[in-house]
């Protein structure tokens, strides 16, 4: 019965996008609960891919292909999340991007995928996102979270400038800011006045969930 979830996880670990998409369709045909398919299947796979990356068993190209496979499965499943369980998305929207001057996309995309899989409405602005763009998108989409990735010590000051911009526009009460990326830390988040830091995609989802329920 749960072999399907095993297969979903395996498709991601095998970096097989075709298979991931096919399994996502099958789970719909079999009327499996969508969130369960994502969490017990695909997310477990991408988590394992992330672990292999951390360990140095796989490298950036494999990580990217794994994330692509994940995206393809999610593209099939996402419309079903919207149709079904959507209470989080009704109240919580996340604007996410990698800061200006920084083209590192993968970590951010993983966090975006995971947030989306967990029912948040995610507005992914991609990489090299100007300070103002985060804020404008947050206003346009009425978001209550901005998640900013920075992978370079030279670009992380941009995270601080987003916080400053939000303060300047008197939106601080409304929008929570979370940061991530290799050079960031909880100390850094505190220093720049952000609401939290997460070191990987799974803890990023937990952090946003925690902040969302605390509100």
């Amino acid at each position: 019965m749960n072999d399907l979830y095993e297969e979903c996880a395996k498709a991601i670990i095998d970096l097989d996008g075709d298979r991931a998409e096919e399994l996502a369709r099958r789970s719909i045909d079999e009327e499996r609960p969508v969130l369960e398919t994502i969490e017990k299947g695909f997310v477990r796979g991408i988590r394992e891919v992330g672990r292999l990356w951390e360990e140095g068993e796989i490298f950036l190209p494999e990580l990217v292909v794994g994330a692509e496979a994940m995206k393809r499965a999610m593209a099939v499943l996402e419309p079903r999340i919207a149709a079904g369980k959507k209470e989080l998305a009704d109240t919580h929207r996340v604007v996410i991007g990698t800061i200006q001057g920084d083209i590192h996309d993968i970590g951010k995309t993983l966090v975006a995928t995971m947030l989306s899989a967990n029912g948040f409405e995610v507005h992914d602005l991609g990489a090299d996102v100007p300070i103002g763009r985060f804020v404008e998108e947050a206003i346009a989409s009425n978001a209550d979270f901005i998640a900013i990735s920075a992978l370079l010590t030279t670009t992380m000051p941009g995270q601080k400038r987003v916080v400053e911009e939000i303060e300047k526009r008197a939106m601080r009460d409304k929008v929570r800011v979370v940061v991530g990326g290799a050079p960031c830390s909880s100390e850094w988040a505190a220093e720049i006045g952000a609401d939290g830091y997460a070191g990987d995609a799974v803890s990023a989802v937990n952090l946003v969930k925690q902040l969302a329920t605390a509100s």
Partner: protein
Amino acid sequence: MSLDFTEAIERKVMLFDGGMGTMLIAKGLTDREVPEGWNIERPEEVKAVHSAYIEAGAEVIQTNTFGANRIKLAASEEGRSLDPSEVNERAAAIARETIDESSRSGIFLAGDVGPTGLFFPPVGNLTPGEARNAFKEQASALERGGVDLFLVETMYDVREALEALRGIREASGKPVVVELTFERKPRGFFTLFGDTPSEGASKLASEGADMVGSNCTIASADMIELARIMRTEIDAPLIFQPNAGKPEMEHGKAVYRQRPEEFAADMMEIVRIGANAVGGCCGTSPEFIRMLHEHLVHGH
């Protein structure tokens, strides 16, 4: 003064300079600017860094052109306003002026070449031809500005390093040094794209790089281990330029805490392992190079 870099490295261990970007940040470069813009806007500050490294004892100085290829410049607003050829030629010219104005002789000028910032598939859509052309254009301008050799550095994908080497070869007959950058993973040293030190360096050496090695990302202690691996498996001349420790963030700025003494002691170990050239990367300053110079002169 007909100096030949390839002869020089057969005779002695050459001392390269240290960090440029971190020095310019200390002089007020902001995250809204690209360091290469200062070759045109504030050449006196760039010359001051070159001059400080020459005074500290560096025998090879590197142009302020790490991100000056067309593709990388196009990635930022300020970069787009700069003409790639002009930036590279000016950068080489001001470094050359600094060397000519110095009282020391026998200083080599290396045209610094960093990555495009875009990725080859499957990570990105960069094609070998696009990369090679951008590097060729940069190398032609550096050559016009008067460099003695080229230093391709901080490469995280051997395929891109090879295109840099090929692009430079199309533009110039001067020696080419190529450095890859490695992360330390539980299983060993790997580039972002999974190349190992010995595979990576072998490919570059067999493609005709005059010297190969590693820079950036890791600190001097880890670089000792990397140097051992490369020296065991690579016959070509080797170069190592580590960072001054791991950066820590303080008040929004990256701070490198390693002391010049510790750096120099580690680098001397790398020399004993058999490096043919040493220098520094991010966070290293003229103080680091001065300390290393003293150790090299006294041989301990």
